[in-house]
């Protein structure tokens, strides 16, 4: 990282970042943001900086980075002013880190007797498309007299069939999703935010992720999950302004609190995979379970991954069939999940799976009906949901004077 000009954002990161600068103008004016800026050949620069300011938070429609460090926090202070100050301090740190700068006065050069402001492990690395996305959990609203501001859509998630949730790594008053192309950058970001937060917030649980399992860039191949399958081919792309508006961004017309306009709702689920039994499952059964072939990823009876699936050709309990919008009255979510491996468990089994992250305009129309429909999913024999959390994702930080959560905490729209 350097203290001089950060590398300019690549074309693609601007596109994916629907709310930023020029792209925002185009999006609101005409909608066809993807076509508004030429030079389709420009590849995504994995080291670039993603703009922090905008109408929506980065890290949602942004092209999915390779690595994740997701952290859920509990608030420990009862002092509202102190908490608001933390949000401002965090915003400033996030603004600096996403631009590739160290936190505060940096990692060296200060008083030798005192610890430096920045922990230093990101020195010399590029911004790596770091995005930091904050969310507010249902329990936050019980504090600071905010119950009147809790959106109706921020419900307490119902229990789903097969859930085996560990409460110690579920929920949280706050979350921060750090995505970057370099794991060191993502870990550095969460570590430094946690450090700034000591005394006001504490980490409740966190999850590292690698190998994105979904793409928000349709021209890219859908990445594979740890079962070896492509899943979520029809994910919402960062360039699909209309679908984003319809399924992801909260609108002032939604009837919820105005502070959420431009925000979204995030469901985070740690889905453990029974890796060893899966690996002993016949190819035919694996393909039947997903409703796709393993090599190309084509839906049953089709040749190419992106061919329109014919759901009735699949087994009634096939995953793709049950998860598809057509089986869920059009319910659609934006997925940006990651694979995870936390070593092996005490029985020597790979502790691995999918850290599922889904953004939507309203979980009651997004995740919940889909997850309910998945109660009969053949895949359930090989997976188990072990942690769960829901967060309201506030709108983006507009400019250098704005801060995370201002619309909620200052009562301004």
């Amino acid at each position, binding site marked *: 990282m350097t203290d001089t000009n950060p590398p300019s954002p690549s074309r693609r990161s601007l596109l994916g970042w629907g709310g930023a600068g020029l792209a925002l103008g185009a999006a609101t004016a005409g909608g066809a943001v993807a076509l508004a800026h030429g030079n389709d050949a420009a590849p995504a620069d994995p080291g670039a900086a993603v703009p922090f300011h905008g109408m929506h938070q980065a890290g949602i429609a942004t092209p999915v980075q390779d690595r994740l460090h997701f952290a859920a926090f509990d608030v*420990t202070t009862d002092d509202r002013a102190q908490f608001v100050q933390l949000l401002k301090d965090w915003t400033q740190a996030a603004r600096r880190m996403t631009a590739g700068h160290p936190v505060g006065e940096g990692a060296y050069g200060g*008083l*030798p*007797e*005192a*610890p430096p402001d920045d922990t230093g492990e990101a020195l010399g690395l590029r911004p790596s498309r770091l995005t930091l996305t904050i969310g507010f959990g249902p329990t936050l609203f019980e504090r600071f007299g905010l119950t009147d501001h809790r959106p109706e859509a921020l419900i307490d998630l119902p229990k789903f069939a097969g859930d085996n949730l560990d409460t110690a790594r579920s929920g949280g008053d706050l979350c921060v999703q750090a995505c970057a192309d370099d794991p060191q950058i993502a870990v550095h970001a969460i570590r430094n935010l946690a*450090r700034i937060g*000591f*005394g006001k917030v*504490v980490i409740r649980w966190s999850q590292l992720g690698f190998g994105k399992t979904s793409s928000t860039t349709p021209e890219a191949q859908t990445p594979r999950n740890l079962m070896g399958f492509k899943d979520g081919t029809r994910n919402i792309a960062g360039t699909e302004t209309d679908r984003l508006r319809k399924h992801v961004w909260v609108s002032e017309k939604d009837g919820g609190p105005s502070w959420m306009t431009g925000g979204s709702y995030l469901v985070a689920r740690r889905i453990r995979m029974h890796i060893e039994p899966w690996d002993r499952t016949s190819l035919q059964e694996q393909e039947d379970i997903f409703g796709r072939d393993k090599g190309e990823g084509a839906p049953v009876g089709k040749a190419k991954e992106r061919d329109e699936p014919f759901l009735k050709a699949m087994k009634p309990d096939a995953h793709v069939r049950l998860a598809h919008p057509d089986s869920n009255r059009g319910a659609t979510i934006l997925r940006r999940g990651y694979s995870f491996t936390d070593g092996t468990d005490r029985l020597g089994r790979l502790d691995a799976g999918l850290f599922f992250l889904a953004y939507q305009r309203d979980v009651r129309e997004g995740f919940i009906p889909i997850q309910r429909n998945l109660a009969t999913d053949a895949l359930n024999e090989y997976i188990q949901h072990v942690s769960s959390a829901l967060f309201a994702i506030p709108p983006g930080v507009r400019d250098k004077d704005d801060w995370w959560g201002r619309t909620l905490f200052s009562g301004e729209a």
Partner: protein
Amino acid sequence: MRPVRPATVAIAVAAALTAVTGCTEKGGGKDGDRVVHVTATDDKCEVSKKEFPAGHVELAVENKGSKVTEVYVLFPDDRVVTERENIGPGTEQRVTAEVKAGDYQIACKPGMKGKGIRQAVKVTGGKAVQRDPRLDKAVAAYRAYAQTQADETLPKAEAFARAVKDGDLDAAKKAYAPSRIGWERTEPVAESFGDIDPKVDVREDGLEDGQDPATDWTGWHRLEKALWQDKKIGDREKELADTLITDLKDWQKRVGKAEITPTSMANGAKELLDEVATGKVTGEEERYSHTDLVDFKANVEGAQQSYELLKPVAEENDAALVTELDRQFAALNTLLDKYRPNTASYDFTSYDKVGKADRKELSDAVNALAEPLSKLAAAVAK
């Protein structure tokens, strides 16, 4: 037990405070400029000159009183430049030292007790480094605190040792945790004597390569294991009880000479919290007795003592930090009080009865305090 560190307090802010302590010399040195005559009586401590040049200085001490006395040359923060004990009535001894420019005190201690009768002296020439007198005062007060802790620990440790030697398992268990409190409160100072810490506070896994637990493991935790795990006291344990006292007496004697500076006090406070964070909240420190919360409380008290002494200066430089530290010390102490029925006593809940969620809460509170505490050194060094 902590990894042995080179004198914790390596950060010597005032370079002027380096000195070579001297020893007695009979008739050595040349008289004249270099000799300062000190006349000690039972209520006076007269010096022949109050200002002398930097460099080699010799004190000619004459005890004209009726009690055995001792004479100290002290830095402004009470650290010992040099000292001479056991100067009998009617005898004369010579003490030498190398001193740099600055303010010092010469103290006579008739009966070898207390703060002594003091005379301010000035050493001139060379480059003197001036330090905020409030910080000197803070260091002196902290040094006195560390000494008091050592002094008050000895009888408690002796009670513990006696119970072990009597073969009284229950009494020894009861006396164990209290015997450690003074040590735990001043651990960064105690650790600055790198040779004492491994003798009295090492855990079995802290032994160095090639050390044999059967013969080389000494100190509190070795006895802890005998009392709680093996549940028996043998000849070896009785022997070790004596060794512990010998080693603690060594500590008591040397506390006054510890290198202490304002920043080392501040960082020492943070280190006490680090001790808590790495050893106590995990239950590793007192793995047999589960008296971790007693050590925990003592560590916090020691850190708070250091902080309170530095607070007047820190407040001037960083008022927001002081507000935060006050808040977090209070929060942690309140939390700790949940684990003792009576705040006048050090009977804390056995740590094996403290559940995972409660341990996390304790750990969170330690982090909440230790993070701002790590900024205290900067606030006093400004």
